[in-house]
């Protein structure tokens, strides 16, 4: 799928695409609770709701789930890359966020999941290099 991207300083920046239930509320949740920052202006207002940036400078292109062919209410999972999964888990706990599980080891590294009140799931993933 070609990404729409955002325009920042005349440069088009693409982010990882994610589809969210109740995207406007979910965006507020991401900004207020998880420290995301809104960046740039969506190029296509029909599809792309916003571009977000996390504290590591990773971009996430947020779409509404009201797209053709996307029906499920429960399949929306935004993967948030982190460099320190345990610290993020420690930080989200006092904010009253609903953790679905504790940090656990997955083939890619260490991860835990939280959810928002609109059925979106967010996976914090600390990717680890096991090749060495």
């Amino acid at each position, binding site marked *: 799928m070609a990404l729409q991207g955002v325009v920042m300083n005349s440069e088009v920046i693409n982010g990882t695409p994610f589809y969210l239930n109740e995207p406007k509320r979910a965006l507020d949740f991401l900004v207020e609770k998880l420290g995301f920052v809104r960046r740039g202006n969506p190029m296509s207002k029909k599809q792309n709701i916003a571009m977000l940036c996390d504290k590591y400078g990773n971009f996430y292109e947020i779409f509404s789930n009201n797209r053709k062919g996307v029906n499920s209410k429960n399949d929306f999972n935004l993967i948030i890359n982190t460099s*320190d999964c*345990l*610290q993020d888990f*420690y930080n989200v706990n006092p904010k009253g966020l609903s953790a679905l599980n504790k*940090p656990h*080891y997955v083939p890619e590294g*260490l991860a835990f999941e939280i959810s928002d009140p609109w059925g979106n799931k967010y996976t914090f993933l*600390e990717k*680890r290099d096991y090749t*060495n």
Partner: protein
Amino acid sequence: MKTFKVLYNQNKLYSEITTEASYTDQKNELSLHVVFNGSEKYKIGKRTVTVFPGNFLILNEGTAYDRTIYSDSIANTFAIFFSNKFLRDFQYSFSSSEQDLLDEPIDREVIQQNTFLETIYPCKGDIKYNLTHLIDHFNENSDDLLLDDYIYHSLLLFYRLYYKEVMTKSNCLDALNVSTRNELFKRLTVAKDYMLSNYNQDISLEDISRQSCLSPTHLFRTFKQIYNCSPHQYLIQARLDNARHMLQNTNYTLNEIVNLVGFTCPSTFIKLFKNKYHFTPGGYRNYVA
């Protein structure tokens, strides 16, 4: 510089950055000792082991030991001392059903293994990531609860590693009798520790065999059953691992590294390094820079 912290649950963390230090007659709780730079020598009974970056040492509760740091470059060492209560809770939570944990959440005696094989373990993968984060948070004076999360994961990952490195590997030995198998495995770990501690020295199969109280032929045959390589290949691998660490973390020249890790011929080193890592040493240094 020494930093020591006792957490709310009596777990302790200790960090030391120095070029020279010596401590005798140490005795603690179960502890994990890791070195991020330089090296640290431990004398445990008659045995001496040296911990280099890429490995860690486990010492049981009550084991008496001396430790020495004597290094040309600054050594950065770190240790976790697990309190007995923390260990007991940890083991209880893993050995009991959810119902038991709800019915009797505290103060239940658990008969579990509290002593481990005191040997050098590889500090790779998850445990390396975890310890690196832990020391960073320790240096930043992070909250006790966060530090405790890392200590919990360190222990969890150690149990997993212990199962892989000790329980699984010892079962690879052909010896039928359990006590014979355990004794043989113990001696083979002495051989392995001797190589990891002296990888930069000119050591022979006879030296290793003498240290481990195994005949050279017996050592050669049984070592392969556990580590899937000969003692010589294991030694070469330890040298290459340490050379790679030096290429990444120091400014030593290639010739200096060749000497420091115990190779005599630079061209042999380059050939072996390239075979193992698919980079020349110089190429690897540029790649990770």
